[in-house]
């Protein structure tokens, strides 16, 4: 299993953000992590990447415990946080070199060349990040997550705020990456999932309410993904 999550919970004060969730993702899958805003998607991802520890429960990535061996986990995970934070006053290449160094990459120059190629950033490599458009910045964020050739990619809303063309391009890059990496990406855009993912996990108010392959979900419900999502979420609220 690439990603394994067991009874993972996060409580902020009195509010339960993530309530004892379980899921497994085998190697090589692209999984869409769906849910309305505030459902607990980002919190789950933050726990998997070691930014915050879980309140209870735990998980592992490629068999390495996310709490006990957080530093080891970070070596094999690439993470693009929500809103794609960047140092705006650094140059693209300089930033990626810095990130490579932080991730413990041995041949940093080669790694930087490689990710610049994948994300098609070669022409922009000598520009300041602050000068780039949103689409290019998103690519820099993705390049940063890829710099140490991670086995697992965790992407928090990788396409938010991009124009339609950029969205398509970003999807292609991610689909390509999914060929030899395990990808967990969050979104609240349905088309996104249909375009990229083999499998969907839907989370609402901290609970997992669906976890199935895309085809199975559609067959069982005989509806479009958007309607399935709406139904599941309203059902839960009535319960």
């Amino acid at each position: 299993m690439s990603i394994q999550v067991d009874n993972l919970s996060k409580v902020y004060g009195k509010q339960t953000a993530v309530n004892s969730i379980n899921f497994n993702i085998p190697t090589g899958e692209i999984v869409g992590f769906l849910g309305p805003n505030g459902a607990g998607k980002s919190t789950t991802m933050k726990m998997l990447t070691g930014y915050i520890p879980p309140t209870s429960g735990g998980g592992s990535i490629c068999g390495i415990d996310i709490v006990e061996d957080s530093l080891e986990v970070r070596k094999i995970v690439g993470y693009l946080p929500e809103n794609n934070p960047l140092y705006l006053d650094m140059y693209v290449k300089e930033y990626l070199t810095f990130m490579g160094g932080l991730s413990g990459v041995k041949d940093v120059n080669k790694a930087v060349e490689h990710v610049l190629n994948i994300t098609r950033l070669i022409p922009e490599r000598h520009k300041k990040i602050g000068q780039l458009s949103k689409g290019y910045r998103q690519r820099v964020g993705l390049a940063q997550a890829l710099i140490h050739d991670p086995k697992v990619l965790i992407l928090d809303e990788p396409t938010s705020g991009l124009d339609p063309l950029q969205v398509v391009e970003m999807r292609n890059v991610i689909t390509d990456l999914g060929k030899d990496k395990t990808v967990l990406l969050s979104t609240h855009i349905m088309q996104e999932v249909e375009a990229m993912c083999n499998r969907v996990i839907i989370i609402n108010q901290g609970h997992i309410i669906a976890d199935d392959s895309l085809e199975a979900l559609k067959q069982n419900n005989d509806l479009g993904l958007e309607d399935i999502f709406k139904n599941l979420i309203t059902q839960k609220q009535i319960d």
Partner: protein
Amino acid sequence: MWTIYKKEIRSFLGSFIAYVVMGVFLVLTGLFLWFVEGNNVFDLGVASLQVMFDIAPYILIFLVSAITMRSIADERKLGTLEIITTKPVTDTSIILAKFLAALTLIVFTLIPTLVYYYAIYQLATPVGNVDTGSALGSYFGLILLASCYTGIGLFSSSVTDNQIVSLLISMVLSFFFFAVLSMLGDIAWLDAVGRSLSWFGLEFHYNSISRGVIDTRDAVYFIGFTAVFLGLTKLVFESRKW
């Protein structure tokens, strides 16, 4: 850790902060040492850098706070803290790297003032009749003092995501620990209490080292003081995990 250290140094150099800090320090200490009426070297007629060493701690309060104000606050605001803390580096090494980078800049800020030492050395009669031991001790004291200010600065930067707030907290705390505590020692009615409080102040130990006698107790005090503030910084840094 050295990756972050190098990046911090480069950002000091790239954003001109380094040059401004060095320039301001050199100009201000120069003004007080040579030009300000009443207290300058010529008025006093003594070949000593004492004037500079008296004023430098106050200039450093301002400069160190300015250097450190953005180091954590800015990362928090930009959200890049989430990026670097999810890379395979420990929180401790992030803080230490930022601390060492700021301290390095301060050490390089002090170096140009050696020109003043040379000038004094030449002015003295006979040439070279200066208290080198005291000057060395004072430089050493300034570096230790700057390390304490840097600790305070990083701590202030970690408690907020606003650089101005961080600057103000850092200046107030530094001033309190340097000057206010030692002023308490001079208040008559506080008597022994005041004097022991002044022992906790930075000025007491700075003056002691300035005399040219490097006492282990003073060195331990400065290093301990820095460690406490770096520890507090780490505590705030990790508060996201509670």
